[in-house]
């Protein structure tokens, strides 16, 4: 048995995997877009020191990439709610969270050109296994 928790009746492993994959993929896209937006805006602490809290909020709210990211994150939230309607919480939440961590590391390397060194890969894998064990 690969999955830590038995699936509810009427839910095939493929359907469960599809629901979890949808959550992981949409939240990865949302998080990468949000991170790209925040990187293009710059250090919020410095902006706040320069033009106050209003200036910092304005900098975020005038970035179209930010809203695109939030739209994907909202989709991921509803995809998770849908998955929770059909799967156990102890399976869906940790599985989606740990999968997202690994896909995020890959996406950040590819699209954000972050330098994902061995230290970060190890951390992502450790957290991933840790979250999987939490489901037991």
């Amino acid at each position, binding site marked *: 048995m690969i999955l830590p928790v038995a699936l509810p009746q009427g839910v095939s492993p493929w359907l469960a995997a599809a629901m979890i994959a949808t959550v992981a993929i949409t939240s990865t896209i949302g*998080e*990468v877009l*949000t*991170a*790209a*937006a*925040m*990187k*293009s*805006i*710059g*250090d*919020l*602490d*410095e902006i706040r020191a320069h033009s106050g809290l209003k200036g910092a909020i304005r*900098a*975020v709210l*005038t*970035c179209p*990439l930010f809203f695109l990211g939030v739209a994907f994150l909202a989709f991921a939230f509803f995809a998770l709610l849908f998955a929770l309607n059909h799967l156990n919480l102890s399976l869906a939440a*940790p599985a989606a*969270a740990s999968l997202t*961590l690994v896909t*995020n*590391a890959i996406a*950040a*390397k590819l*699209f*954000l*050109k*972050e*330098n*994902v*060194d061995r*230290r*970060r890969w*190890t*951390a*992502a*894998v*450790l*957290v991933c*296994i*840790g*979250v*999987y*064990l*939490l489901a*037991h």
Partner: protein
Amino acid sequence: MDSSQSPSLFGTRSSKLKAASTRLKLSQYVVLALVAICAPLGDSCLARGMRQMPSISLDHPLALVSAVFHPWIAAGIVMLICFFACYLTALSWADLTYVLPTTAFGYVIIALLGRFWLHEEISIYRWAGIILITLGVGFVAQGPSLTEQTPDRELTS
């Protein structure tokens, strides 16, 4: 936003940000801690509130709107707004692959809340998971928070 700073998709980081120190200040560690604490507290408040609500079917989705005014759910939403503000701030000065593993400590907080507040049983597997996550967090938090964009640059830290 100033048009000279307008981002392309996956925008290039400003030179000012590139020159920024990769070591974090104490206040920035506080922001990361708030991300890790606010998310599980917000989720717990939502879960607690939703458990007290009558079951909601998809035929009456407007019932979800009234749920927003439930005290526990409102508290959860406030916590999640705090989480999102701190998360965005952290992303403005640190890499996504730094912020996500460092704030994964939230999973441990959820498990500890379950054990000591809700008196749930924690199996040996869960303790092993908690130890692994803590190791992963400590591992990445010691490294640089922001890396150069050129992927072939040697990291010295």
